[in-house]
């Protein structure tokens, strides 16, 4: 018996000592100089960083553009070193950076730049304006000749990635993400993760990080839990962190919460071509029923700014100086409904017209619910509308199905994020009847010939103040007709663990991966 006891105490003693030793080893690892810490980062985000046109250029930095937009959204040289525009505003001469190679070894030059721009105009018609032709002047100079001036051309180059000709198949589909950026794709698991390794031959110098894993975590709560557990080192992208999660992360000393006013703004969109929203009075009633201030205060916890016009505050000069939209006046809302023929005849609190109750479904895209507090916003709007006698259902549908339903015209009312690379294109993309290149709410939601005319004119108008006046009129029409309801500009929330340094947020969620590094192990 006593021998047994001795053996047991010996074993316990050994276990105890070894655990102490393990502690020592760990401590040593902590004190290792930064240079020896593996330069690997795992970042979480709420969407798949790879889409139909390959790796997301700003989130992954696999691709680069001729022109980049800095944190103030001003154009800066990217793969172009300088540019000139002709007197008539139709011909752009672009000088290209020398000594740049694509990840597959293809040299970047006038020929590949021309190829990339032509590809971009094929897959996204109108993106770069109406380009007549692209000429190669010499190995590192191209001329882009438009058939008519396209004022936001320089900014729109931010959307046109330089891609290796080997990366595209005969149907213009991206088969592999081959760019010139500081990081290249090593592995991609759809709907799961993208692994990037550094581009040893990057023209801008060797990036500090060796490897980046971008993990697509659709569920917002799972995302922050992964960050807290140290499974991921940072959360990036617009809609990375829901406002309601920010206080939890802020209370964690190991995590730094960062914010920036981004380019993304959010709206209520409705189908103005079919009842009940084909009547401007019903649309106006909705805007009187809701209160964006309280949405920002309670659904966004203050992480946003009310907008009174569809142009985001980021482009202040382009915002209409007057407060165009009117909100939160339920009596006016009820009166407008009454004028439009809606009245509560049976006393059930829901208004009717021709024996039919005012019932509407707000469809929300599942992917967006995981990134922005759309569900809370919808529930507050639901309660606001009930007060004026409108029964609103909320239906969260799969993002793919949502897009199909939008195309089919099955969505009557929804919440939509919009982002514009320039004030001109932001407004045109949102309101022109042919829609745009970012998320389109139009078609199918409305079509207004005067708005088409004005937005087209603004695209051609190279003089900013004249273009601003054109867009002011668009904003006046949008507000008078309530073609949509601007809700708020988002304050983008990201977070990093304290061993990650160098991350700086960008309004267009560009990640400065080449500056980011790891200072100690978790």
């Amino acid at each position, binding site marked *: 018996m006593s021998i047994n006891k001795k053996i047991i105490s010996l074993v316990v003693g050994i276990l105890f000592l070894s655990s102490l030793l393990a502690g020592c080893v760990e401590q040593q690892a902590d004190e290792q100089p930064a240079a020896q810490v593996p330069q690997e980062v795992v970042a979480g985000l709420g969407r798949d960083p790879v889409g139909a046109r390959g790796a997301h250029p700003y989130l992954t930095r696999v691709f680069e553009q001729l022109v980049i937009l800095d944190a103030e959204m001003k154009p800066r040289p990217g793969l172009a070193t300088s540019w000139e525009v002709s007197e008539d505003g139709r011909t752009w001469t672009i000088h290209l950076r020398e000594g740049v190679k694509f990840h597959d070894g293809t040299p970047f030059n006038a020929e590949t730049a021309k190829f990339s721009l032509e590809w971009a105009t094929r897959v996204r018609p109108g993106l770069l304006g109406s380009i007549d032709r692209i000429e190669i002047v010499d190995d590192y100079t191209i001329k882009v000749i438009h058939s008519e001036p396209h004022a936001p051309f320089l900014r729109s180059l931010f959307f046109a990635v330089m891609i290796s000709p080997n990366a595209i198949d005969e149907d213009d589909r991206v088969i592999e993400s081959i760019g010139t950026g500081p990081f290249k794709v090593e592995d991609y698991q759809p709907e799961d993760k993208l692994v990037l390794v550094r581009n040893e031959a990057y023209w801008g110098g060797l990036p500090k990080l060796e490897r980046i894993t971008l993990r697509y975590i659709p569920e917002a709560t799972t995302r922050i839990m992964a960050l807290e557990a140290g499974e991921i080192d940072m959360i990036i992208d617009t809609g990375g962190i829901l406002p309601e999660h920010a206080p939890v992360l802020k209370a964690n000393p190991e995590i730094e919460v960062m914010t920036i006013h981004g380019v993304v703004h959010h709206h209520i969109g409705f189908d103005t071509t079919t009842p009940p929203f084909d009547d401007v009075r019903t649309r106006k009633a909705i805007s009187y029923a809701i209160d964006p201030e309280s949405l920002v205060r309670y659904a966004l916890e203050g992480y946003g700014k009310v907008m009174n016009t569809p142009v985001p505050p980021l482009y202040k000069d382009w915002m209409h100086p007057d407060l165009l939209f009117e909100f939160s006046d339920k009596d006016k809302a009820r009166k407008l409904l009454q004028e439009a023929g809606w009245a509560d005849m049976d006393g059930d609190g829901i208004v009717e017209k021709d024996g039919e109750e005012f019932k509407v479904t707000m469809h929300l895209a599942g992917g967006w619910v995981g990134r922005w507090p759309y569900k809370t916003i919808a529930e507050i709007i*639901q309660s606001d509308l009930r007060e004026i006698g409108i029964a609103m259902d909320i239906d969260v549908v799969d993002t793919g199905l949502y897009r199909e339903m939008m195309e089919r015209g099955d969505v009557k009312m929804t919440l939509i994020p919009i982002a514009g690379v320039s004030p001109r294109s932001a407004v045109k993309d949102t309101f022109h009847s042919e829609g745009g290149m970012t998320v389109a709410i139009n078609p199918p939601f409305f079509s207004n010939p005067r708005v088409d005319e004005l937005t087209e004119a603004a695209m051609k108008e190279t003089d900013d103040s004249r273009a601003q006046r054109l867009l002011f009129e668009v904003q006046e029409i949008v507000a008078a007709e309530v073609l949509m309801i601007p809700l708020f500009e988002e304050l983008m929330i990201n977070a990093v663990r304290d061993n990650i340094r160098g991350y700086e947020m960008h309004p267009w969620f560009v990640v400065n991966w080449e500056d980011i590094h790891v200072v100690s192990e978790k």
Partner: protein
Amino acid sequence: MHDLVTKIIESRLPSTEVFRGLRKHRLALIGAGIILVLIFIAILAPFIAPHDPIEQNLEHRLLPPNAEYPLGTDNLGRCILSRLIHGTSVSLQIGVIVVGIAATTGVTLGLIAGYRGGLVDELIMRIVDVLLAFPGIILALAIAGILGPSLYNVMLALAVVGWTSYARVVRGSVLSVKEKEFVEAARALGAGEARIMFRHILPNVTAPVIVMATLGMAHVILAAAALSFLGLGAQPPTPEWGSMLNDGRAFMRTAPHLTIFPGLAIMVTVLAFNFLGDGLRDVLDPRLKGAAR
């Protein structure tokens, strides 16, 4: 299963004896008591709830329990107690409707399969086999996913998944009961098939169905809460316990009362039905009587 069922049938007791048996079963009594209270809460919800369950009061959001809001408020400033009270009737309704549909369908098909035998039996039981081959909650998830999120679709999905076990048990019971002399006698007296099935055989197979239905209530309420938690069931602003849990999840650390109370409500209700179901089984099944506890 088969001979357990036979035992249960053979021990068919008059209802007074069931009550006498239950009276000795303390947990079952507690369960029955809780269920009675829940039924009262559900019926009287509009009168006893201190606030409107869907009325938002954004200035009063995320309040901890206090005098005005005994269980606090949620992220939209709604009274959690009122939502729980109204949620009781939602949950009980789901339970009763789903179990009702599932048991009716299952018992009818089980009776037909067991009594007719042959090809009909083969057909029904193979359908049962196919449905039982899928994990129930996953199948319900798939059905609710295809039909679209709504409380009705969740009930439908759970009923589609749930009837199979009733059919199986009833068929098993019928197989042994139909060989009994009183069935022979009824047949000899010229009773029709339907009469024999429903008047003579059915009363002899109800005991296991009652036990299953009681335990089934617990299972269905839990499954419905799970599906609502996943966003497939009750849609806002319906005060459903599962969706309340889901809504509160983001605030679990800053305002834990958003999840604790709905969680407790689900737990207590499910436990109550399980206690009662266990008690009924003990009473109705002499083989387990005494041995189980």
